[in-house]
């Protein structure tokens, strides 16, 4: 049987084509592969499910072993967030034209160029910066590249990184800034913000996150910008764009580079496969430091018509190989288009409202869990979407989360044996939060009783 995905495996057409070419068999095409490199047996792979229905059964059976956040009440965040995904976002990014397009030219792929240009343009409005890249892989990569951009720009090889950064992200930064760039970590102050730092003229950048890994909104951005600038360094700020309807964009307090992840803008959690990174700068010399593609608007031979194309392509490894800036590959463009759809749906009002709702519900959840007897870290700070709670004894975190999971609640991400990071978005109703608090309170009572016994 000819496989539905391989039309020319059909023996008749195969023979016809071989005859046209004048080849005896497909072996002719492989004559350059030495016999000793030829695999002399079939690959050892499972028996295939050729019938689509059999494949569907197999996949459903496997995937049915997962229990997703749609079947539980989830407070998991820590870099992957359960925001509402508008149906129109799914509709657009599942359009076959976008899903299966790739790297065409600005003529036959005009729509792809325009959609990505519009995405970067909407991000630019949100960020108040004039230059935004076509998405890189994720917020980790965006931070790494932003710091390398700062180093290239300043000619320096040391960066001061906030201590309130996720451990995995720091791991990525360490790997990606190796071997030439030194990372100095700043302390976290008692309020959960970046603590006092000492800078000198060997630093290329200060790297700040807001909201940071604890969900704390950093308040001293301007001060840090001034400090950095006084030493000829840059301020690099990682900010989640979904917060920027209510929070000041990094540029507003002097950041030179903004970066972060756009998964919060209309992309499902996708088991972590929905990440995409943005990097933004002013329209200044930093533009030369971007490795990513930048799509710009350009005139055509017809006045008033807009075409699109690559801005300053000669920065890239596509143009210059190792002489380009880092590298550019296939990153996460479709999530950029999706985030554009999200921003267009939300508009200024929607972005403000979602920010206000998240701020209010986060505070409500902090108070509710404090009421349930947990210690809320950095309670005095403004939190956006996340906050950490601390338990009394080591290993309590896992036990509490196990108890909650038994009730269908994914209570949060354990940061360590006694600290849990709780995430609250506009998808969590007040009743959801109350349910979590009640379950926590009851679990703790059970623990206490267990302890007494």
């Amino acid at each position, binding site marked *: 049987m000819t496989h539905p995905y391989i039309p020319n495996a059909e023996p008749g057409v195969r023979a016809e084509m071989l005859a046209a070419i004048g080849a005896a068999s497909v072996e002719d095409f492989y004559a350059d592969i030495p016999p000793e490199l030829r695999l002399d047996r*079939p690959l050892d792979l499972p028996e295939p499910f050729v019938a689509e229905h059999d494949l569907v059964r197999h996949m459903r059976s496997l995937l049915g072993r*997962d229990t997703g956040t749609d079947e539980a009440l989830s407070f998991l965040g820590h870099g992957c967030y359960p925001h509402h995904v508008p149906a129109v976002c799914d509709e657009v990014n599942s359009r076959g034209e976008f899903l299966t397009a790739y790297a065409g030219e600005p003529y036959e792929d005009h729509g792809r160029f325009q959609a990505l240009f519009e995405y970067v343009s909407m991000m630019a409005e949100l960020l108040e910066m004039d230059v935004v890249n076509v998405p890189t892989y994720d917020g980790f990569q965006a931070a790494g590249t932003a710091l390398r951009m700062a180093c290239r720009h300043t000619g320096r090889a040391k960066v001061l990184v906030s201590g309130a950064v996720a451990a995995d992200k720091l791991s990525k930064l360490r790997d990606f800034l190796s071997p030439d760039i030194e990372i100095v970590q700043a302390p976290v102050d008692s309020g959960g913000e970046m603590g006092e730092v000492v800078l000198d003229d060997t630093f290329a950048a200060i790297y700040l996150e807001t909201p940071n890994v604890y969900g704390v909104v950093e308040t001293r951005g301007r001060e840090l910008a001034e400090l950095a600038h006084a030493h000829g360094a840059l301020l690099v700020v990682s900010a989640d764009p979904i917060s920027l309807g209510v929070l000041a964009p990094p540029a507003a307090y002097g950041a030179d580079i903004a970066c972060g992840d756009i998964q919060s803008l209309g992309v499902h959690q996708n088991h972590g496969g929905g990440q995409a990174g943005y990097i933004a700068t002013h329209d200044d010399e930093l533009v030369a430091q971007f490795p990513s593609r930048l799509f*710009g608007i350009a005139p055509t031979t017809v006045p008033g018509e807009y075409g699109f194309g690559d801005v300053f392509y000669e920065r890239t490894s596509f143009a210059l190989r190792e002489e380009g800036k880092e590298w550019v590959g296939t990153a996460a463009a479709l999530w950029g288009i999706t985030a554009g759809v999200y921003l267009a749906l939300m508009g200024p009002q929607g972005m403000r409202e979602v920010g206000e*709702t998240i701020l209010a519900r986060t505070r409500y959840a902090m108070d509710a869990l404090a009421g349930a007897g947990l210690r809320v870290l950095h309670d005095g700070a403004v939190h956006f979407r996340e906050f950490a709670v601390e338990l009394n004894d080591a290993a309590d975190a896992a036990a509490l989360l196990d108890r909650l999971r038994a009730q269908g609640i994914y209570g949060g991400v354990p940061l360590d044996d006694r600290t849990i990071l709780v995430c609250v978005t506009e998808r969590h109703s007040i009743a959801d939060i109350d349910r979590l608090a009640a379950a926590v309170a009851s679990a703790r009572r059970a623990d206490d009783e267990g302890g007494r016994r």
Partner: protein
Amino acid sequence: WDEPIIFEQSRPGQRGIAVPGPGAPAVELPDSVRRAAPPALPEMSQLHVLRHYVRLSQESLGVDLNVDVGQGTCTMKYSPKVNDSFARAVAELHPLQHPDTLQGVLEIYWRLERMLAEVSGMARVSLQPGSGSAAIYANIAMIRAYHAARGDERRDQVITTMFSHPSNAACAKTAGYEVITLMPDADGYPDIEALRAAVGPRTAALLITNPEDTGIFNPRIAEFVELVHQAGGLACYDQANANGILGITRARDAGFDLCHFNLHKTFSTPHACGGPAAGACGVSEALAEFLPGPVVAEEDGRFSLVTPPHSIGKIRPFLGVTPNVVRAYAWIMTLGAEGLRQVAETAALNNNYLMHKVLRIPGASAPWDRRRIEQVRYSWQELSEETGVHSEEIGVRASDFGVHYWTSHHPYLVPEPFTLEPTESYSKEDLDEYAAILAHVASEARTDPELVKGAPYNSPIHKIDPTPLDDPRQWAPTWRAYVRKHLA
């Protein structure tokens, strides 16, 4: 469609979606963090947002629509719709759920890692990288970690070839290596004498694609690997071009220590306008301890996450691009060993058939009279010299006929290049049609070169003037910049 820029469609007071109200007391923000003025995002009703993007989608040319053989090296193959349904099934999974609630997806990772290990001959595979280039970078980071772990700090050079993907050179440079690029020899093969001259105690690794982007398979590949090994370096196989050799020859069997696959090329996950993609790193036993973490471990049918002891750390957040991992797994599971081999053989058949047709077009050539596997880098040098029409112009004209056309990466080592890779997905009639389009445009170039140079005629827009894109005073990478520079 003559679809305006989205900002031009904004109308104050409109909105595309409503948001749940707080339901709890508002939080007062200190001035230092409060946004001062609302962002100037477009204001549009939901239908208007949808309509705008549906129209733009129709102005994009995906595999679902065209005979997509003109984006050579990109392996534009059919991405089965049924696999998209599996990808959607992981949409609401959070990556940090307890592994007890993720046994299905972890098993898929585990199984796919093992299947790709079998396809490559490698011992272990990581599916964490977000793309082929990211996998190349991960491989380089592992190479760096390997030498460092052995205290072998002298090795600061990486060798690659000119017809390997530019990311090999670029990733190596980013990771701190000096890059040595081997040029092809007179036969179109990577020059083994140049390699002999280049290897030495400073050699960290060879990064090489095979077949290269010319479609030529280097028959002395094992010798290349051996030379690098003798010098103490590692050999890393860029398998972006694996589509023609699945089940035919394997990376490890040629001695390679590391390799990578692009799941969005060889294993059919969709290209998505340029990602999300997915990459896989395969390594020999000796390098397994350096793999990015975590990877999936199995014990008694239960799957868990473990981080290799000397892991290079994170390449990207979380475990990998799961929707694409799921798709690639399903794709292999509907083909099996025999199916993968049919994929390879048919990709080679289609490529050789198309080459046979293209080389009959006067003015087209395929430099070096070598066999090709799954793609060919062709040249219009002869046509261009005769007519003054350049390969880029032929490409723009080809777009008038509803197909893509790619020249090649820079620099244009092959003059007036174009690169075709027909994969296994297309029918004989499709290939005939594509060849006929090229023949038609080539004949237009002879009879009416201005017609070709004036293209496109069938696009939403006309010929673009690219000069502002390279001029900092004029370029406009966002609408905001455009308004400031050109409309203010």
